[in-house]
């Protein structure tokens, strides 16, 4: 019996001909203009540009000059439901995902109450089946209440649809507790996604420890707070032959530890977030709480290590760590503000603008990393191939837009890219075979 692990509201299957877009799917080897026909929500035909006649009843989209990629997958978002629906709901969070070109996202369990039991998970899955615009999966807690003291009922949770487990927002502080979870993983499966931080090193830190925190007089979170835990937990995972995924890596030492344990054969993977790949702690000199998140923005050398790790595959995937907060919660002094920034609507455009356009990262690698999160959670990778369910994003890479100028699909506006002009406009998103986002009006191209 297979257990459903992704949930979304039912929507009519797409009947769609996307004509003449540059189709790029690194896994299928596609990298040329072509026609893509979607029938009954699945990819029915791939052909040379202009080769396919518009079938009756199908919507034809002019794709000339645009790019068509497999839909993006985000293994790490906060949908704030249940309990903090003033920040985000399943509906608004998945609308933000659709607007960002995502065909699947994974919600974290640090809700109110914590998602740590099967009845809670079942209720949330049922709610997602009513409200979610794009497929959502859930990762319940590793430990009850995220307290790090006793395991959640992982086996029952897996049967109820858990994708994997995480105490995200908090580390599993005790090595012995993580070891128990890894032993239990042999029974129930499901990756353990780890937020790595040693609280005895991070303390009351609010930003990266370095010259900028020294200048601002703010308590620092040293890189070693993360990297020592990455190294520790990779060692435990290797010992137990378990599988762990390191969330939102932020520093050079963590990338090195991940690479070393991979080379040693451990089943470890990692993700990086668009803000860590494009910003540094210098941004905090503005004292703007939109630059406050955990882990914090770090030094330029850390950013470069993350980019190198992403390029060479040490870091498998991009994860936004989309963390919405209400305006009044963020509009306080930096030290008082909650950690977290939104990311679903800006992830691809900011990485395209800041990494691909300057030649730092090839477009194909970016697309691969934007979609690779699914496989890490044992889900099918979004793929452009005949017979596959339609998971697609159509982008105007020449078009530009100002972040926040038209508001956000997310309920929250705490984007660290607010006000920036980015290249890459999502024109159409197809998720699980249904059209979930379509840009209302074309945006003018950059001259």
């Amino acid at each position, binding site marked *: 019996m297979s257990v459903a692990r992704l949930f979304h509201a039912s929507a009519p299957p797409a009947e769609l001909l996307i004509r003449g877009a540059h189709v790029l799917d690194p896994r299928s080897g596609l990298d040329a203009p072509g026609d893509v026909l979607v029938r009954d929500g699945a990819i029915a035909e791939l052909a040379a540009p202009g080769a396919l006649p518009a079938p009756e009843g199908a919507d034809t989209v002019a794709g000339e000059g645009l790019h068509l990629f497999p839909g993006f997958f985000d293994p790490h978002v906060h949908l704030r439901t249940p309990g903090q629906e003033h920040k985000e709901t399943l509906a608004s969070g998945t609308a933000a995902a659709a607007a960002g070109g995502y065909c699947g996202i994974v919600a974290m369990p640090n809700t109110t109450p914590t998602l740590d039991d099967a009845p809670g998970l079942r209720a949330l899955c049922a709610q997602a089946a009513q409200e979610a615009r794009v497929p959502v999966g859930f990762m319940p807690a590793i430990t009850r209440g995220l307290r790090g003291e006793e395991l959640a009922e992982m086996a029952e949770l897996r049967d109820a649809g858990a994708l994997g487990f995480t105490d995200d927002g908090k580390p599993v502080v005790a090595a012995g507790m993580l070891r128990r979870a890894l032993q239990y993983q042999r029974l129930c499966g499901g990756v353990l996604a780890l937020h790595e931080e040693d609280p005895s090193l991070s303390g009351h830190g609010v930003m990266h*420890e*370095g*010259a*900028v*925190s*020294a*200048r*601002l*007089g*703010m308590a*620092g979170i*040293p890189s070693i707070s993360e990297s020592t835990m990455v190294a520790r937990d990779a060692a435990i995972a290797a010992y137990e032959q378990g599988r762990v995924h390191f969330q939102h890596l932020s520093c050079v030492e963590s990338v090195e530890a991940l690479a070393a344990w991979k080379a040693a054969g451990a089943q470890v993977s990692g993700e990086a977030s668009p803000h860590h790949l494009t910003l540094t702690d210098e941004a905090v000199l503005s*004292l703007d709480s939109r630059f406050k998140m955990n882990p914090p923005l770090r030094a330029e050398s850390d950013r470069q290590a993350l980019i190198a790790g992403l390029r060479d595959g040490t870091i498998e995937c991009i994860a936004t760590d989309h963390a919405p907060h209400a305006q*009044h919660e963020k*509009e*306080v*002094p*930096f*030290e*008082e503000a909650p950690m977290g920034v939104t990311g679903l609507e800006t992830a691809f455009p900011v990485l395209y603008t800041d990494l691909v356009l300057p030649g730092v990262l090839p477009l194909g690698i970016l697309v691969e990393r934007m979609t690779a999160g699914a496989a890490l959670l044992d889900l099918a990778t979004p793929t452009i191939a005949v017979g596959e369910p339609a998971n697609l994003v159509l982008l105007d890479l020449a078009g530009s837009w100002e972040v926040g100028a038209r508001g956000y699909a997310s309920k929250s506006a705490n984007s660290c890219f607010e006000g920036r002009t980015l290249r890459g406009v999502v024109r159409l998103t197809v998720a699980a075979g249904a059209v979930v986002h379509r840009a209302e009006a074309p945006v003018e191209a950059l001259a």
Partner: protein
Amino acid sequence: MTDPMRHLLSIDDLDRAGIERILDRAASFAEVAGREIKKVPALRGRTVVNLFYEASTRTSSSFELAAKRLSADVVSIRAATSSVTKGESLKDTVQTLTAYDPAAIVIRSPHAGAAQLVARWTDAAVVNAGDGKHEHPTQALLDVYTLRRRLGALDGKRIWIVGDVLHSRVARSDILAFARMGAHVTVSGPPTLIPRGIEALGCEVAPTLDRLEEADVVYVLRMQNERMSEAYVPSLREYAARYQVNSARLRPHQLLMHPGPVNRGVELSADAIDSPQALIAQQVEAGVVVRMAVLYELLAGTGAPVEAVEAVAAA
């Protein structure tokens, strides 16, 4: 460009000429302070709000006196007695106070960047009277003022800042201000209380007081008792043994400063505090005239260009 300085949020808002202009004006106010009637009518009819979210004796009282001696109307609000304790946000409080149309808001907050936020929410000039462990620019100005009176120029002078630099907004503003005035700044204290990366502010780090004799000025920071419970140092006894500035460590040619309040017998020995080298009383005295000059600069000043502000804005 002739953008006048609107706020004093950081020492970075001032270049050397700006600092000198304020301190020269402070010196002229010092003459007024010597008269029987100490008031000047510069800010008559204007309102200055002092908004203090932290306990403060000398900073709040000297701002209050400074505003009154400029003939401003003064409203002083302390967090403990205001609706702040009822959970009102900083933004709501500032917007409420802005309804009184103040010319200036002086803010002291336990959080870095609070003054910047206030400046965003009000049309009033904002003076940072201490924000978290970030900055305390008027303290730095009065420290430079006090030293200038004694030494003339600070160019080439060696100034040692000793103690808990990690938790000190005074240290940060002083490092910037002293360096901007041409001094060579060294910070010294237990390695647990020297923030990683502090050199980027333009100072040198010395882990011990072995080279203290090279200093022209020894600026001692307050050592708070709670640093012990947080295990930054093993004991006050050990701290004092290594870092207390006392008559044995202090050379006759050296000037001694402290932002107050002093923990007698911890960071400073009683004999050092009471020695003629100590400028601690002069620092307090300078507080009023320097803060008068700051308020005057922001509210009644000539609007002379301040290159540093433009440089920061352009960066």
